[in-house]
């Protein structure tokens, strides 16, 4: 039986961190799904609930005239944010399905969703309804603008949250448009909600009390990019976009290297590192140049400084330049694309940062370990993203103890569906 709990008990090694935690998971698309993914990889048993009628849109399939059709191939994204979960199906239009769902929550610790306000109430699994059957339940909700306040009904994806929360206004070059930080950054919302869930579970483990946990995307973005608000609060000035420059460090930019799409980040944060950089550039005389003698002078003369650095980087391959600079003690890194991260970074390879999963219907895919699970140090659990309903028998016969005949009837009548 594909139970992570059962599997881990056969080993004498230390157990996964969240062993024994069970999550009923209604999340869809990215932000909510990535939250439960993280908890699943940390060892919780995550039961993702969908139905043939309404599969997660990230599966790229849709129910059309009695059968599932592929509509939009986002299966890579699906595999990336739904591994380490189990899949079961319930047609919640049927009262019997809602009863099974109620029984599932009774034997679970957390119920997670990313629906709009009102959907969970309709299915009878909102916090107040669940609390009656499971007094210590923790409910977890990812929402765009939060569940209170004048914009509570407003819709958001990650990019909307980062615009409203103030990150985008600070992202981009001073003479250009603001740039959305939200696409790459919406994972931080999931991580923050996972943190809140763990805090609630920790509290519950000591007191027996459950509660509601909620994250609003813009508030997460505010909390992890507080600098512009703090600067405004401290000085009354609205700061400008800085591109890749910094308020105190110079040189500090991403410089083009030899060849196409080859870039390196270099950041000099002390006088000693400036001297080291001059030696690497083959320009030791610059250390005596008054234009660059102090941190303030280097900040004032950034434009000419960038020209000097670029004259050198243009002749380098970024990965080699990174090694040279780091050997001299200068903070530097090649800008890595996904191929380099996966196939070429010797450091990530040595730390075994990617796990390959044979994912049914999708193929052999790489997923990143949870940060901190270096070579499996935290005993995180990685199982392939499941096909729709792959674990129905385990969930309904195994966990809920339905007899075979009853299970078959519920499948037949499209309750487990």
């Amino acid at each position: 039986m594909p139970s992570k709990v059962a599997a881990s008990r056969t080993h004498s090694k230390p157990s996964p961190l969240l062993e024994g935690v069970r999550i009923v998971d209604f999340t869809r698309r990215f932000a909510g799904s990535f939250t439960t993914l993280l908890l699943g990889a940390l060892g919780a048993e995550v039961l993702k609930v969908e139905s043939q009628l309404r599969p997660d849109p990230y599966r790229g399939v849709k129910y059309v005239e009695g059968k599932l059709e592929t509509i939009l191939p986002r299966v890579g994204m699906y595999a990336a944010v739904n591994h380490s979960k189990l899949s079961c199906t319930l047609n919640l239009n049927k009262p019997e399905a809602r009863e099974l769902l109620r029984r599932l929550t009774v034997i679970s610790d957390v119920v997670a969703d990313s629906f709009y306000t009102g959907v969970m109430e309709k299915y009878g699994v909102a916090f107040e309804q669940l609390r009656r059957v499971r007094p210590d339940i923790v409910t977890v909700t990812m929402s765009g603008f939060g569940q209170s306040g004048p914009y509570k009904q407003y819709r958001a994806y990650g990019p909307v949250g980062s615009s409203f929360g103030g990150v985008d206004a600070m992202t981009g070059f001073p003479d250009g448009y603001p740039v959305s930080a939200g696409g790459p950054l919406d994972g931080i919302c999931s991580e923050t909600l996972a943190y809140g869930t763990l805090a609630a579970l920790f509290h519950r483990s000591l007191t027996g009390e459950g509660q509601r946990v909620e994250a609003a995307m813009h508030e997460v973005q505010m909390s992890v990019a507080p600098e512009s608000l703090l600067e405004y609060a401290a000085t009354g000035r609205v700061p400008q976009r800085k591109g890749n420059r910094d308020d105190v460090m110079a040189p500090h930019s991403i410089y083009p290297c030899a060849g196409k799409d080859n870039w390196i980040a270099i950041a000099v944060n002390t006088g000693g590192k400036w001297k080291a950089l001059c030696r690497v550039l083959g320009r030791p005389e610059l250390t005596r140049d008054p234009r660059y003698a102090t941190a303030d002078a280097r900040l004032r003369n950034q434009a000419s400084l960038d020209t000097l650095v670029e004259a050198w980087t243009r002749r380098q391959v970024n990965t080699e330049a990174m090694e040279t600079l780091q050997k001299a003690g200068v903070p530097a890194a090649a800008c890595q694309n996904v191929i380099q991260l996966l196939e070429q970074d010797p450091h990530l390879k040595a730390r075994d940062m990617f796990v390959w999963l044979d994912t049914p219907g999708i193929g052999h895919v790489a997923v990143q370990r949870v940060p901190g699970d270096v070579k499996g140090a935290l005993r995180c659990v990685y199982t392939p993203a499941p096909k729709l309903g792959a674990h129905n028998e385990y969930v309904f016969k195994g966990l809920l103890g339905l007899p075979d005949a009853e299970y078959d009837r519920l499948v037949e009548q499209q309750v487990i569906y």
Partner: protein
Amino acid sequence: MRDGALHGLSVVEYSHGVAASFAGKLLSDFGALVVKVEDPRGDPSRRLPPLVTNGGSALFAYLNTGKDSVIVNQTSAAGRKVFRDMVRRADVLVEDLSPRQSRRLGVSYHSLARLNRALVMVSISGFGRSGPRAGFKSTDLVNVAAGGLALTMPNADEKTGLAVPLRPGGTFSHFATGLNAAITALAALMRRNSTGRGACIDMSEQEAVLHNISRHVTQYTVDGKLPLWALARNYGGGGGIMKCKDGYVMVHAAEEYTWQALLDVMGWPAWSKDERFRRRDVRFANWDKLQPHLDEWFGPRTMQEIFHTCQAKDIPCAPVTTPDRLVSDPHVIARKAIIQVDGLAMPGAPVRLADTPHAVRHAAPAPGQHTEDVLSRWLGYTPSRIAALRKSHAI
């Protein structure tokens, strides 16, 4: 007020950087006792910009809410013993020492776990504690480059389509790392509560950054494509950041029905019937032809007008908010998303726990403000012992 969710938990934070401080702040604001151990010179992050008018760091004030500051001179044997006594009593140690400092001060999991088997120790560094690049120097810019984020920002050159690497506003890598440190620490504490066994966590800033974009690596293993679908002003053919009368808005009509709703809001202009703009993929390819039509509608309207008009039709949209507008936004005010601590406005709860809410116990401490308090109340040192430690400059 109710105790926070992490009431009863004790944390020692010995750090110089933003990531470890943010991990400590997350734990502190949810109720843990966080003892910030500083060297006699004070945590260097006390000097991080932005600075308030009296010279203090506003960023430090944000990162260290509710913590107790203890100054310990770890170059003295007596000082190191005080530190070890704290670790003996702590549930969690968060540190970001360089490998050289760790060796000099004897701060290793191997030696500290002998004092406290249940200790959860999180070590934060740019590239982690093992592997060929362990010990490489890092800053936020270096982290976002090494972790792949800089090349994943939707900032491709509009003519060539090639990525132009960019760092997100703020210092994203440090906050992502602190958050992941706090997550793994809490998860490790859940196991410790049932088994008594602690954990040693090697948290790398590169890997914390990567975690936020690694879905693109997975996608690449499925279809062999690099994530280059979003340009600065063409967000996958469903909108993007638009210039308007008094600033910018983000409109993200990701689905076909939200795009239809946007056309509805714009009154079904003639160009909407153009084949080049019908489907998302062809819109993406023909965006430079579409942009002037959109500008015509967005240009003369205000951020607030566009925001509320679009949201009334369920179109994901928001103003690109600057801090002066954020502080006066009615939604931000209604949810108390910005709080005042000692007269300084700062972000409030990142996530809300209904019954054990986020709460700032007190403002960021002065260096050593709680040394005596922590030594006497938490460690149970006698006044004479504390006086002797003071006399020998161990504290």
